């Protein structure tokens, strides 16, 4: 294709090099320095997207981050698919593959466009809320899928993102956001003062609006040359960090800023080791906001046709990119900046057929100069419509008569209509910092009222529009910021001489008058969301008063562009309908991010194996070699079951349980939390933190400890062994270890600081090997040198220190299976060696290694609870039948007072019981609800729920535990567990299924 819409010369593109790219499968050519939008325009491509709701054909509106229409998906191959990118920000590179969105089958023939010709009002404001009401079930099956297909943005990627992303913390004296005139001057001043400066800009090339100036001269140098030389100065300063392609998207408390830097999207063949994006977390002593301003569209019928664009954008395309957005233009303006566009387009060889100025008398020097240049300037005039569906063919232009009525329209042939509605300061970051805004009534714009502490706004975002004024204000702001950051510098003023610019003056808000049938035309306010002038008026008529509500009802200002071009016009129309001045209607809240940020940038390296730390026990490799299947418990990998010879999980768990009860098994219990509680007041401390009494526990003995929170609910449990009068070995649940230590520290530091106690986490210091089963003693005895393990010498619930396999050990006689059991604690680095020695010995007795699933079944057969499974933060010791664990003689412990609250004593509290299904083969589902009747009336409250349910090898049937209202008074009752097919009948029993007298423990 011939490149027919390039200017003859000029611009910041490299005309000597050609880049090939495709858009919707068609090959095009562009140059380095192009964006996708400028390259498409230079190729004569106007149609770049379809609108969200009506599927109207759309072209590019803007030239920067505010673009609402030209959203594209970019495919970088290998699953690298990014939807909803603004073509105005996509840098062209060799081989770029971009596609348009929200159209089928193609951009120029889109079936969805039928939405645009349905009768007026059908798709108006609140359409979704009004139409898709009933039945509720249709939402999931019908409405939502339909809406998602019909109205939408790009497709989400279908594969995992193969790129990686990185994070970086940074600190500086002065952060300057935006590298236009004000930002460059601020950075220059701050750097000259010796400050450490970070200067970031969203674009590939720093310079902002200066890059799009044709005639402006700063201190005798063309504006873009001044920008280049200033950048050269800054980049030569080691204290200055220049970050192009970096969007400051969020401002957070204490001058903390989120920046995202694009590192590889612009490269044709990026090094795969390079991160795609870097998230900068910047802490700045001071910040200068120099974020510029966004041009407002004018709201008139058919103002969304491809070829209608912002005047400033058109200037940028011809001056900076050497791309002509059309051949023949009509400039519709309410601001002097429209004239700058007219001059620049004329210079680029585009015929400007008319300047249609909305203002009554633009008879100042700007209009005079334009007339002098031979341009047709019409004052008090409006564009009342645009012809052309896939591209502008003509503009209808009329004059507003003295009585305010719009006169007959004249048709002016053109393929380009520019809109210059004035400029809206980009106050987003100032507002995110909770800065107040002030409505400048004369200029009709919101500007920062007063700077937030540690920050200042400069240039167009502060309502300061001329280049000279922006440079001076930026320089002064940079000097101030450096001084506030502690740099001593006396120079603070710079008064540059600027010529050749037209300073933007004037503007318009709201909808412009026209003579068309308002029911039949669409004058767009929010291009991305297809919100028209009449949608906003309708919302006000229907009773919406708050601008926040109008926004949500009409969707004005929502989606990826967040209303950058639409908020002020929408606000003005709402204010007009309400008959109130703009500041009384308010402004919607600005929230981060300023532009969309990828999930990848936020996630950084925290994905896959690095999402969370992985904790492995000392026997992990051994278990893996045995074929263990692991489960995640907190951050731990625990052996779940260890299948043999192709066993199913079901078979493996039954075998493991049977083997433990018949002879014995080994279990890795290293994940149990362990806390060493040491000090002269250690026993008293435990007295206050656990329900149980500890003072009289002898050295060498253990006790089951139950821990409550202050509200009286069970929060943890575990065995505690006393090693010396002032030393306890406390164990906690696997998941509860950090919480228990924090709870203990809290009370020790803040409620009982007088106690002389020290707490140390020893979870990772000890490997714990549980040796359980009738032959447990026989297996361990040969390996233990200096501990008398005889039945009487070392009874159940005792602890000894000695050596096992020559390794110092703490040997507990404890059981979580109901069998004779020991838990061997050895230093973690000896864990696997000791495990292997015990394993070898145990094989003489036919032991197995068992996993967490068998452990759960074995403990359930004995009715031992698991905190977090039988409890849920609303369960008391009494609910669990654990009254015996409460030291009744103790005056106080954490939670004791709460146990006496009336609600804690009600007889209908949910209590732990056992459930036996009438059909012994049926295993209940954990979490299933329990009712008194098989078919309860809809709305009946459940009596409780199943907490644990297993098939028991020892009992040859299923067993379950449950929390049931008034459960202990229901023993023998038949209850029901309603399931989708039928209710399951169960009998309520005591929650101990095996060896109730405990003879096996005492073996």
């Amino acid at each position, binding site marked *: 294709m011939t490149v027919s819409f390039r200017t003859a010369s000029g611009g910041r593109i490299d005309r000597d090099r050609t880049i090939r790219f495709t858009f919707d499968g068609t090959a095009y050519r562009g140059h380095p320095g192009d964006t996708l939008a400028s390259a498409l325009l230079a190729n004569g491509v106007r149609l770049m997207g379809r609108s969200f709701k009506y599927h109207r054909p759309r072209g590019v509106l803007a030239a920067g981050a505010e673009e609402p229409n030209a959203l594209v998906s970019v495919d970088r191959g290998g699953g690298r698919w990014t939807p909803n990118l603004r073509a105005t920000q996509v840098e062209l590179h060799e081989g770029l593959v971009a596609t348009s969105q929200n159209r089928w089958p193609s951009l120029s023939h889109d079936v969805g466009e039928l939405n645009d010709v349905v009768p007026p009002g059908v798709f108006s404001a609140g359409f979704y809320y009004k139409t898709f009401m009933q039945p509720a079930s249709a939402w999931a099956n019908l409405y939502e899928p339909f809406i998602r297909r019909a109205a939408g943005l790009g497709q989400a990627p279908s594969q995992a993102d193969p790129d990686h992303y990185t994070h970086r913390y940074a600190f500086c004296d002065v952060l300057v956001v935006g590298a236009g005139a004000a930002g460059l001057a601020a950075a220059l001043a701050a750097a000259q003062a010796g400050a450490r400066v970070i200067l970031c800009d969203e674009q590939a090339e720093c310079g902002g609006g200066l890059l799009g100036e044709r005639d402006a001269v700063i201190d005798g140098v063309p504006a873009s040359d001044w920008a280049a030389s200033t950048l050269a100065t800054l980049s030569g300063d080691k204290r200055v960090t220049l970050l192009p392609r970096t969007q400051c998207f969020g401002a957070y*408390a204490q001058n903390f800023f989120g920046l995202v830097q694009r590192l590889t999207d612009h490269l044709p063949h990026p090094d795969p080791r390079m991160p795609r994006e870097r998230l900068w977390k910047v*802490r700045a002593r001071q910040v200068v906001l120099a974020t510029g301003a966004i041009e407002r569209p004018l709201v008139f019928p058919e103002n969304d046709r491809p070829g209608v664009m912002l005047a400033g954008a058109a200037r940028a395309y011809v001056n900076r990119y050497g791309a002509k957005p059309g051949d023949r233009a009509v400039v519709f303006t309410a601001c002097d900046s429209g004239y700058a566009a007219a001059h620049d387009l004329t210079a680029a060889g585009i015929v400007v057929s008319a300047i249609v100025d909305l203002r009554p008398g633009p008879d100042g020097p700007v209009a005079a100069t334009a007339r002098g240049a031979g341009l047709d300037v019409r004052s008090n005039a409006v564009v009342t419509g645009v012809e052309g569906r896939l591209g502008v063919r003509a503009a209808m232009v009329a004059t507003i008569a003295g009585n305010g009525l719009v006169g007959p329209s004249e048709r002016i042939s053109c393929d380009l209509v520019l809109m210059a509605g004035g400029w809206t300061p980009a106050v987003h970051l100032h507002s995110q910092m909770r800065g107040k805004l002030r409505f400048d009534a004369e200029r009709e714009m919101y500007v920062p009222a007063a700077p937030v502490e540690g920050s200042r706004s400069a240039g167009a975002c502060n309502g300061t529009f001329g280049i000279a004024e922006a440079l001076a204000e930026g320089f002064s702001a940079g000097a101030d910021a450096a001084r506030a950051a502690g740099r001593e510098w006396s120079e603070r003023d710079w008064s540059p001489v600027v010529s050749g610019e037209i300073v933007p003056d004037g503007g318009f808000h709201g909808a412009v008058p026209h003579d068309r049938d308002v029911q039949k035309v669409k004058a767009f306010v929010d291009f991305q969301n297809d919100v028209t002038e009449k949608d906003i008026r309708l919302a006000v008529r229907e009773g919406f008063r708050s601008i926040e509500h109008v926004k949500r009802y009409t969707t004005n200002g929502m989606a990826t562009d967040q209303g950058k071009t639409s908020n002020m016009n929408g606000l003005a129309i709402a204010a007009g309908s309400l008959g109130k001045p703009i500041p009384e209607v308010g402004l919607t809240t600005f929230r981060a991010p300023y532009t969309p940020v990828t999930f990848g940038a936020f996630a950084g390296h925290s994905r896959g194996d690095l999402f969370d730390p992985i904790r492995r026990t000392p026997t992990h490799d051994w278990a893996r070699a045995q074929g263990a299947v692991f489960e995640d418990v907190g951050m731990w990998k625990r052996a779940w079951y260890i299948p043999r010879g192709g066993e199913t999980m079901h078979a493996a768990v039954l075998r493991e349980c049977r083997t433990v009860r018949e002879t014995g098994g080994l279990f890795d219990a290293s994940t149990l939390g362990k806390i060493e509680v040491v000090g002269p007041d250690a026993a008293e401390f435990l007295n206050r933190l656990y329900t149980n009494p500890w003072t009289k526990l002898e050295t060498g003995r253990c006790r089951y400890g139950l821990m409550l929170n202050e509200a009286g609910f069970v929060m943890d449990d575990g065995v505690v062994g006393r090693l010396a009068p002032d030393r306890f070995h406390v164990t906690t649940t696997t998941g509860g270890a950090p919480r228990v230590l924090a709870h203990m*520290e809290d009370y020790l*530091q803040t*409620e009982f600081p007088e106690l002389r106690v020290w707490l140390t986490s020893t979870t990772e210091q000890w490997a714990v090997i549980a040796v359980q089963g009738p032959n447990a003693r026989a297996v361990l005895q040969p390996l233990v040198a200096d501990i008398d393990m005889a039945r009487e010498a070392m009874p159940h619930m005792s602890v000894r220190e000695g050596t096992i396999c020559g390794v110092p050990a703490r040997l507990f006689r404890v059981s979580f299976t109901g069998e004779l059991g020991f838990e061997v604690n050895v230093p973690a680095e000896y864990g696997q060696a000791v495990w292997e020695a015990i394993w070898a010995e145990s094989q003489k007795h036919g032991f197995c290694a068992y996993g967490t699933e068998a452990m759960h079944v074995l403990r359930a057969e004995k009715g031992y609870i698991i905190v977090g499974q039988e409890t849920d933060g609303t369960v008391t010791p009494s609910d669990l039948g654990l009254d015996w664990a409460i030291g009744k003689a103790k*005056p106080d412990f954490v939670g004791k*007072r709460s146990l006496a609250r009336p609600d804690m004593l009600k007889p209908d509290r949910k209590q732990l019981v056992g459930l036996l299904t009438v059909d012994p083969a049926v295993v209940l589902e954990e979490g299933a609800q329990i009712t008194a009747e098989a078919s309860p009336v809809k709305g009946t409250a459940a009596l409780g729920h199943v907490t644990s349910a297993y098939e028991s090898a020892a009992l040859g049937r299923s067993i379950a535990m449950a929390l049931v209202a008034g459960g202990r008074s229901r023993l023998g009752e038949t209850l029901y567990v309603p399931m989708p097919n039928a209710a399951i009948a169960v009998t309520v029993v005591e929650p101990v299924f095996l060896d109730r007298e405990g003879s096996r423990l005492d073996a």
Partner: protein
Amino acid sequence: MLLIRCPYCQTDRPELEFRYGGEAHVSRAQDPSSVPDAAWAEFLYMRTNPKGFHVERWRHTHGCGRFFNAVRHTVTDRFLATYRAGEPKPDLEALAREAAR
């Protein structure tokens, strides 16, 4: 991310090192058994939840491990002061006046 001054370490450290601990100066009775039910429920469950300056507990979990108290504005997240556990509650109005200067 907030920077929080640990009154024990005497340095400003990132929020990630700390764990929030709820409202401060909610003291546990010396003899809870003598506290009436309603007052005990108040102690357990009722907090001030102000819009403005809030006196609250923090723990320098991934640092010195100590609990301390802080005065933070719940709208701006601005910290007016941090001080050690056991020290008296500061005069909020005086702090706010000083901060406004």
